């Protein structure tokens, strides 16, 4: 009985929000705005639940002296310090900006920089892993665009910029559009399954 109650809640709420996309009735529009407002607030509360889960997992790892428990302690300390400084002084204060500019941005930038090696390594090994026509076209296009994007030591290969622009405007757009239309169909099917109660990720 409880499960059907949750299914009814999800269906009713979902139906109101979905109809709000297509029907512009004042009552429906206002109801939809209020429901969205509550959903945004609950999303923020869910973020706090997630943070509690993150804290609990690492706390257990540290207190039960599992291997690598030291790193969990480091994570908890850095989390508490950041929470204290940014919470007390505000996110745009000099101290908060100091933490952001000297810890978060350098590390995220470095992780992104690692992709130059990881993606090149994947590109080199792709044809060996999947020796088929699709891999050849994929690698060929990627290498051509890399050559055409930056300056070629000042050499201006005739037509390479125009070829790059054409690939960007025609075949790449066609493929992207087809993939996006397919993804949209899959999204509609999945959403409708949840709205009709066939899929119930809640109520566990």
């Amino acid at each position, binding site marked *: 009985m409880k499960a059907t109650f*949750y299914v009814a*809640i*999800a*269906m009713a709420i*979902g139906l109101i*929000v*979905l109809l709000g*996309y297509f029907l512009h009735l004042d009552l429906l529009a206002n109801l939809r705005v*209020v*429901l969205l407002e509550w959903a*945004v*607030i*609950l999303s*923020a*509360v*869910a*973020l*706090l639940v997630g943070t509690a889960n993150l804290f609990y997992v690492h706390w257990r790892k540290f207190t039960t002296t599992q291997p690598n428990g030291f790193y969990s302690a480091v*994570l908890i300390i*850095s989390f*508490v310090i*950041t929470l204290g400084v940014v919470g007390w002084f*505000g996110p745009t204060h000099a101290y908060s900006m100091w933490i*952001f*500019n*000297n*810890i*978060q941005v*350098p590390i995220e*930038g*470095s992780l992104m*920089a*690692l992709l*130059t090696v990881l*993606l090149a390594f994947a590109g080199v090994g792709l044809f060996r892993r999947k020796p088929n*026509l*699709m891999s050849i*076209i994929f*690698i060929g*296009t*990627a290498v051509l665009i*890399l050559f055409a994007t930056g300056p070629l030591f000042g050499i201006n290969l005739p037509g390479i910029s125009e070829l790059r622009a054409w690939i960007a405007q*025609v*075949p790449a*757009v*066609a*493929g992207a*559009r087809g*993939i*996006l*239309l*397919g*993804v*949209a169909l899959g999204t509609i099917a*999945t*959403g409708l399954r*949840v*709205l009709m109660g066939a899929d119930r990720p*809640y109520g*566990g």
Partner: protein
Amino acid sequence: MSIADLVGAILGFIFTLLVFSYIIGDNPLFRLAIHIFIGVAAGFATIMAVNNVLVPRLLIPLLDGSRAERILALVPMVLGWLLLTKISPRLSPLGNLPVAFLVGVGAAAAVGGAVTGTLFPQAYASINLFDLQSAGAIDTSLGLKLVNGVIILIGTIATLAYFHFGVSSRAQQPSQVQVWLEGLGQVGQAFIAITLGFIFAGIYSAAMVALIERLYFLVNFVKPLLLPLFPSS
């Protein structure tokens, strides 16, 4: 450069090297850096959620909003408390109501967003390629626009056809339609490979700029320390 900036630069320098050491292999220094990073990122995200959502949209209306605002804010407050019970495995079933609420809104947003935000705009854009009247106004050569339009149309349809899942049950002698579908799917695969290859090059470019920015930071940090050693350069 103030002391805080100097300490900050040293910290940034060390963290950059620790993360770059991952290329050699997963090592304790890399683990130390990413665990500090996860803690800092979680701290910022938590404060932003509280400052930008919970305070202005829940607490302020509850504390000094109008009567209507207070009543409206009571419902998310109760649902919020119920959702917090998900932290404890024992009380967790109490939080199923707000979760069902979120899933209902999420599913509707997915369907509504897909239809109005992707399906129709992309289909409409494919049709608009052949709006030759307006093409004349922007003095693009008509022939080239038409050829490009036809190629984009074929590419879009072939890509969409490639994802077709159903196959005829008579696998031994596939019907004519199946053979034709197979061919169209091959064309679609080529277009998918070009699109993903182009995006792959775009991601690689972004990573390259990130690497160059980090290298400039490292070099500019080390250069003043080494300059006294090479007065001539």
